[in-house]
């Protein structure tokens, strides 16, 4: 007969919570089993066991991905590290055209983290997983000495299935294709700068952290032959477009005035000398679609809550090859290159 679920004691995580003993079992049973709450995880086996037949009916290729989340601070306007860890991996699957199904969760916890904070993160992961329609089915927990990690690092891996006929790749951009984005860029990057409190700015910028799989499904329904799609995370819009241009050997010409950008984000970029094209996003995707389907895809995006502010921001060109050119709102032109190093503020 199975005992009732253990209860985690104490207010902070200690090394004993990673020791493999009773404290660790209490942590896993209370926080993770209780928090993530699903039947596959509850078997407490060393691996999640998934029925192949069900997967095979959903598509003809398996998609796998993994990502680690090390954001500081853990909680920020519009999200937290937990929501980020779920949505980031869901989105990495979705932009390949896959239907995300299962996630894993590896936690590296710094000794001294408040149990309450961990509980909040787990609850947030569960909520994000439910919203995206995925399940967290297996995991791992390590506790490291104070100073060996920064509060909490999370790794999530994801499994999804790609439906037949979908072939989204960075090298499929063709001259004449239209470049679409699903809304305001740079919100996440700006929210993190803001949340660090180094600038004492008074604004309400919130991260755009959100799952994109529903939006991608709606886009694929409008046009199964989407050529390229990526979520514009670290490195921002500019980096994704450079990847498309370089992989496909085409050029991309952007219209600065068409790129959705919130005023407070623009203001912060002005203040810090940052370029919003390179700011991180956590709920934005960039898609390259054949011109004849662009309007239909755009309409489908705008009809979905994650794409209400979608816009066509540019087109794929034959030349200059492998380069992204921005037609500025001022009437000039410039190249938008890959980001080098970190974006750092200018000094005067």
């Amino acid at each position, binding site marked *: 007969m199975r005992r009732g679920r253990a209860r985690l004691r104490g207010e902070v995580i200690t090394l004993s919570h990673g020791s493999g003993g009773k404290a660790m079992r209490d942590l896993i049973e209370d926080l993770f089993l209780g928090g993530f709450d699903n039947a596959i995880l509850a078997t407490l086996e060393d691996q999640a066991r998934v029925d192949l037949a069900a997967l095979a009916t959903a598509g003809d290729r398996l998609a796998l991905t993994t990502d680690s989340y090390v954001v500081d601070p853990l909680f920020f306007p519009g999200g937290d590290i937990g929501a980020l860890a779920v949505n980031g991996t869901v989105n990495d699957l979705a932009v390949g055209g896959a239907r995300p199904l299962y996630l894993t969760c590896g936690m590296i916890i710094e000794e001294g983290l408040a149990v309450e904070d961990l509980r909040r993160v787990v609850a947030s992961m569960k909520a994000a997983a439910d919203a995206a329609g995925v399940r967290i089915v297996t995991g791992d927990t390590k506790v490291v000495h104070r100073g060996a990690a920064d509060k909490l690092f999370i790794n999530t891996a994801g499994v999804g299935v790609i439906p037949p006929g979908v072939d989204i790749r960075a090298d499929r951009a063709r001259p004449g294709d239209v470049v679409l984005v699903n809304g305001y860029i740079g919100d996440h990057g700006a929210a993190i700068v803001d949340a660090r409190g*180094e*600038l004492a700015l008074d604004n309400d910028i919130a991260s755009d952290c959100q799952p994109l799989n529903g939006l991608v499904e709606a886009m694929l329904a409008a046009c199964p032959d989407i050529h390229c799609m990526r979520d514009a995370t670290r490195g921002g819009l500019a980096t994704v477009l450079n990847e498309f241009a370089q992989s496909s050997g085409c050029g991309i010409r952007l219209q600065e005035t068409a790129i959705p950008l919130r*005023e407070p984000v*623009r*203001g912060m970029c*002005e203040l810090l*000398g940052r*370029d919003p094209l390179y700011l991180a996003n956590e709920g934005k995707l960039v898609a390259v679609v054949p011109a004849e389907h662009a309007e239909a895809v755009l309409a489908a995006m705008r009809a979905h809550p994650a794409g209400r502010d979608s816009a066509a921001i540019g087109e794929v060109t034959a*030349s*200059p*090859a*492998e*380069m992204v*050119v*921005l037609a*500025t*709102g*001022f*009437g*000039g*032109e*410039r*190249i938008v*290159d890959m980001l*080098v*190093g*970190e974006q*750092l*503020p*200018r*000094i*005067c």
Partner: protein
Amino acid sequence: MKYTDEFRDPRLAERLVREIEALVAGMPRLRERPLQIMEFCGGHTHTIFRYGLERMLPQGIELVHGPGCPVCVLPMGRVDDCIALAERPEVIFTTFGDAMRVPGSRKSLLGAKADGADVRMVYSPLDALALARRHPDREVIFFALGFETTMPSTALTVLQAEREGIGNFSLFCNHITTVPTIKAVLDSPDMQLDGFLAPGHVSMVVGEAPFQFVARQYGKPIVITGFEPLDILQSLWMVVRQLAEGRCEVENQYSRVVPAEGNRPGLQAIDRVFELREFFEWRGLGSIDHSGVRMREAYARFDAERRFAVPNLKIADPKSCQCGEVIKGVIRPWECKVYGTQCTPEQPLGALMVSSEGACAAYYNYGAVKPAAQAARREVVS
């Protein structure tokens, strides 16, 4: 956005470009060589590239991106001194972001940070002073650099530290001054410049008078210029109009911000804390007399150079670097022997490739060259 969009109106830009074109068309001597106009300030360089201004200008005008990025002109030996200070175990070394990537002879401050030095990025010298308050058991050094623009805030921070009796705060002073540097450029034997855009933020502090010598002694028009793209186009039009009319004066395009007499309290704070050095070494330009400042004796206890043993090494610039010729407009960035090959923003060899305000980095990031794509990029930028 209020107070910025007004300065980015494409219709006004087009009108200004047409007017510049008309002026240039009426200047027959331009058949021999294009007008060379130098923007001294890195902030201007940044705007020019960010808005693609060069490509909008008519043929017959060439912009030369001068030595006005304080990060770019910092000699390697001074960076090595920074690292020596930062690597002292008792020190928290604070700096503006751009300075973190400037290469020293062995590594940059970012490299020193990765090796364990406590290097922290701050947004103002007051942030560094706040760190000193929070860590009374550590020595907080602020890496002070920049032209007259940033000097008042550094000076005022020192005065604040003095008022509060803070004993664990000091400056590694690398502030530099504008006038001797413009003079050094003008005195260069291979100089071909026809006019200048004077730095707006520096002028906000020093006023108009210090630039009179450019017009009077050297006969070159100079226009104090703001940082929005329309500011720059209008200033270029003002310089070209002076040339077309055979005038050479100091004009103030940025009068909405720059008072003719400058900022008196700022100048007083600078004067109280700093004094001119006999000479100061610049990357790419060599030693320039009276072009840098140090802290006065009265503030010696806030001077990291006096408080700690700074090696004060002289390190020659890499031989293959042609930063000096680029700064003076003798060659364009892509004509440098190592541009885009041995010297890239990822691995800068020369200082101009470090900061986004450096001419080479600006070309590279906003219109630059990777060997395979060189021809296509030139097509876009030139």
